[in-house]
C-alpha cells in the first residue's frame, strides 16, 4: 500500500484550462518527493488537490489506501507549509505552533512540551513570544515548518517554502530541510520551480509542464536520462546544449560512424536534435574547431561559449571547463564532445541510438 496515490486525477479551471491533466503517481512511506515545474505547470494545483483545498474533477486520490476525494482538508490529517507561510498575524509564535494541537484538544501541558521541543529542534526557542511581524523571513519560515512538524501527520506538503528567502539562506535551508524531514521520518511532497533544489533534496522528482506529468524518477535519472527535450532543458545548470542534426553529413565531425548510420535512419522519422551538457565538452583538443565568443567565470568552473560551424551552419555551444584553464574571448579552440553522454531527441522525445 502506498502512502499517497493519485489515479487519473484531472482538475480543470473553467472550460478550457487543464490545470492538472491525468496525474498518476504514488508516494511511499518516508519518501521525499518533489513536484518540479515552471510556473503554471500545475504543481501547486496538484499539491492543493492532495491537501483537499481544491476538489478533483476526475480521478482518485488516496491516502493510506483510503480514497479521500470527498474529505475536507481537516479530515485528511496532513500538514502544509505555504509559500507565504500563512502565519496567523495576531498570534505569537508559540500560539501559531500550538494551533494544530489546540484544534485536536491536546492538553495544555502536552502542547507546551511539544512546542518547546520542536522550537528547540528548529533553533527558535527564544522567539516563542514574538509576533510574526517581528520576525525575519528565515525565522517566519521556521515557524511555518514548526507548525507543520508539531504533529505527526500522514503527509507533509511543502509549497515552495524556500522561494521567499534570500539566496544564501535558501542554500543553507535545503540541507537542513532534507535532514529535518528525514529525521522525523515524514512522507513529504515538496513543490518547487527550482530544479537545483529538487535534485538536491528529493528521493524522487516528478517533473510537470502544462498540467502534464513529464517524467517521474530519481534525481540522477532525471538529469542523465530526461524523457524529452523539455525535461532536458529544464533540469541542470548551466543549461544543456541542444542543436538540430539536419543531415548525417553535417554531423560527421561530431559522431562516430556507427552513430551516423543510426542517425541516418532516425532522420527519416522526423526532426532530430542532439543534446549534450556543457560539462561533457572539452575545448583543448578535438575534431571541431571554433572561436570563443564569451567566457563566464562561475567560481570553480568557467562557462565558455564557442561558436562552431557544422557544415555551413554556425551554432553556439557552451562548455564547462575548470577555472585552471586559460581561455579568453577570441581564442581559437578545438572541441571534443563526449559521445557516450549525448542525448538524442526525435520530435522532442528522447530516443536511444
Amino acid at each position, binding site marked *: 500500500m502506498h502512502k499517497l496515490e493519485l489515479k487519473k486525477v484531472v482538475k480543470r479551471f473553467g472550460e478550457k484550462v487543464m490545470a492538472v491533466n491525468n496525474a498518476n503517481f504514488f508516494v511511499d512511506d518516508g519518501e521525499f518527493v518533489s513536484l518540479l515545474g515552471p510556473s503554471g505547470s500545475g504543481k501547486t494545483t496538484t499539491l492543493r488537490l492532495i*491537501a*483537499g*483545498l481544491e476538489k478533483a474533477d476526475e480521478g482518485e486520490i488516496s491516502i493510506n489506501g483510503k480514497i479521500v476525494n470527498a474529505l*475536507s*482538508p*481537516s*479530515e*485528511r*490529517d*496532513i*500538514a*502544509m507549509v*505555504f509559500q*507565504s507561510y*500563512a502565519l*496567523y*498575524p*495576531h498570534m505569537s509564535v508559540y500560539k501559531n505552533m500550538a*494551533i*494544530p494541537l489546540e*484544534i*485536536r484538544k491536546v492538553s495544555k501541558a502536552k502542547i507546551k512540551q511539544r512546542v518547546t521541543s520542536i522550537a528547540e529542534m528548529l533553533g527558535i526557542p527564544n522567539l516563542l513570544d514574538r509576533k510574526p*511581524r517581528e520576525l525575519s523571513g528565515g525565522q517566519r519560515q521556521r515557524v511555518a515548518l514548526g*507548525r507543520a512538524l508539531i504533529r505527526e501527520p500522514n503527509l507533509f*506538503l511543502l509549497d515552495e517554502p524556500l522561494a521567499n528567502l534570500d539566496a544564501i539562506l535558501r542554500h543553507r535551508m535545503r540541507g537542513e530541510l532534507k535532514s529535518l524531514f528525514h529525521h522525523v521520518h515524514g512522507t513529504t511532497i515538496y513543490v518547487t520551480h527550482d530544479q537545483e533544489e529538487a535534485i538536491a533534496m528529493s528521493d524522487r522528482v516528478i517533473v510537470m509542464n502544462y498540467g502534464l506529468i513529464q517524467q517521474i524518477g530519481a534525481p540522477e535519472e532525471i538529469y542523465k536520462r530526461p524523457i524529452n527535450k523539455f525535461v532536458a532543458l529544464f533540469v541542470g545548470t548551466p543549461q544543456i546544449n541542444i542543436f538540430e542534426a539536419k543531415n548525417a553529413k553535417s554531423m560527421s565531425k561530431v559522431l562516430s560512424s556507427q552513430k551516423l548510420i543510426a542517425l541516418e535512419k532516425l532522420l527519416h522519422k522526423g526532426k532530430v536534435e542532439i543534446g549534450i551538457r556543457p560539462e561533457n565538452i572539452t575545448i583543448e583538443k578535438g575534431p571541431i574547431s571554433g572561436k570563443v565568443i564569451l567566457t563566464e567565470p562561475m567560481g570553480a568552473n568557467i562557462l565558455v561559449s564557442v561558436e562552431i560551424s557544422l557544415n555551413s551552419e554556425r551554432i553556439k555551444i557552451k562548455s564547462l571547463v575548470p577555472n585552471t584553464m586559460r581561455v579568453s574571448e577570441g581564442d581559437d579552440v578545438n572541441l571534443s564532445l563526449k559521445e557516450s553522454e549525448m542525448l538524442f531527441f526525435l520530435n522532442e522525445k528522447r530516443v536511444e541510438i
Partner: protein
Amino acid sequence: MAMQSVNPKHEKGYLLALIGFVSPIVVFFTIFQIYPLIKNVWFSFTNIHNNFTLNNFYAILTGSSFWQSTWITVKFSLISVSFEMVIGFIFALLLNQEFHGRKAVRTIFLIPWALPTAIMATGWKFMLQHSYGPIPWILYWLHITQSPPYFLSMPKMAFASIIMADIWKTVPFCALLLLAGLQAIPRDLYEAMEVDGAGWFFKLRKLTFPLMLPAITVTLTFRFLQAFGVFDLIWVLTNGGPGNATMALSPFIYQQTFNWLDVRAGAATAVITSIYIIGLVVVIWITRSYVGRRYATQ
C-alpha cells in the same frame, strides 16, 4: 562658507505654497464649522442682554426634557448600532461566500445606503400606518401581534419604529464595510487552518473575529457617532413624538431653537451634546489604540 541646507522647509516659497494649498479648507472650516461651535458656546453662557449667565445650563440640567433626550439618544444609538453590527456581520459573512449573483446583491446593498434618510423615513411612515400600512398588517397576519399594532402613536412602538427604519437603512452599509475587512484577510490563513484541522466555528473564533477587530472598531465608531446625531429619521418619521418619546438630542436642539425660539436653551443643549461627542471620540480613540496595539497585523 556655511553649508546650504537641503531641508525643504528652507526651500524658496515653501511656506507660501503650503498656505496656498491648505488655506482654502482652513477658511471654510473656520467659518462654517469652528465659528458656529464657538458662537454656540457664547450663546449658551449669555442671556439676551449679552451678560454672562449659567442660567441656560441650570435650566436644562434641572429640567427633565434634556435628560430624557440624552437617555433616548443613548438608547437609540446602543440598540440600533448593536443590531446593525450583528446583522451586518452575518450579512458580510454571507456576502463573503461564493454564490451566483454576488455582485448584484452587493449592488442591491447600496440602495438603502444611498436613499436620502428623509425620503426613506417618509416611505417607512407610510408602511407603518395603522389602517393601511403593510407592516402592522403583516405582523398581524403572521400572528406575531393580536391586532395590527399602532406604531407611530404609541411611545414604545414609535421608538421601535425608528430603530427598525435605522436598521434597514444602515445594515447594508455596515455589511459592506465589514465585508471589506473580511476580504482583507489573506485566504491562505484560512487554508492553513483548514489543513491543520479546524472547523468553521474555530476559524470564526480564532481567525476571522480577531483579524476583523480593526474593521469592526472603525465601523462601530462611525456608526455610533452617526447614530448619536440622528435627526432626519426622527424628524420625518415621528417628529420626536408621540409626546417626547423619540426626541433625541438633535431634534431636541432643533425644537428648542426653531419651534420654541429659545435660542439659548438650544445653544446650551448643543454645547453639552458637543461635549458628549468629544467624550465619545476620546473613549473611541483610547479603545482603538488599545485594539491597534493588541491586534495589529502589520
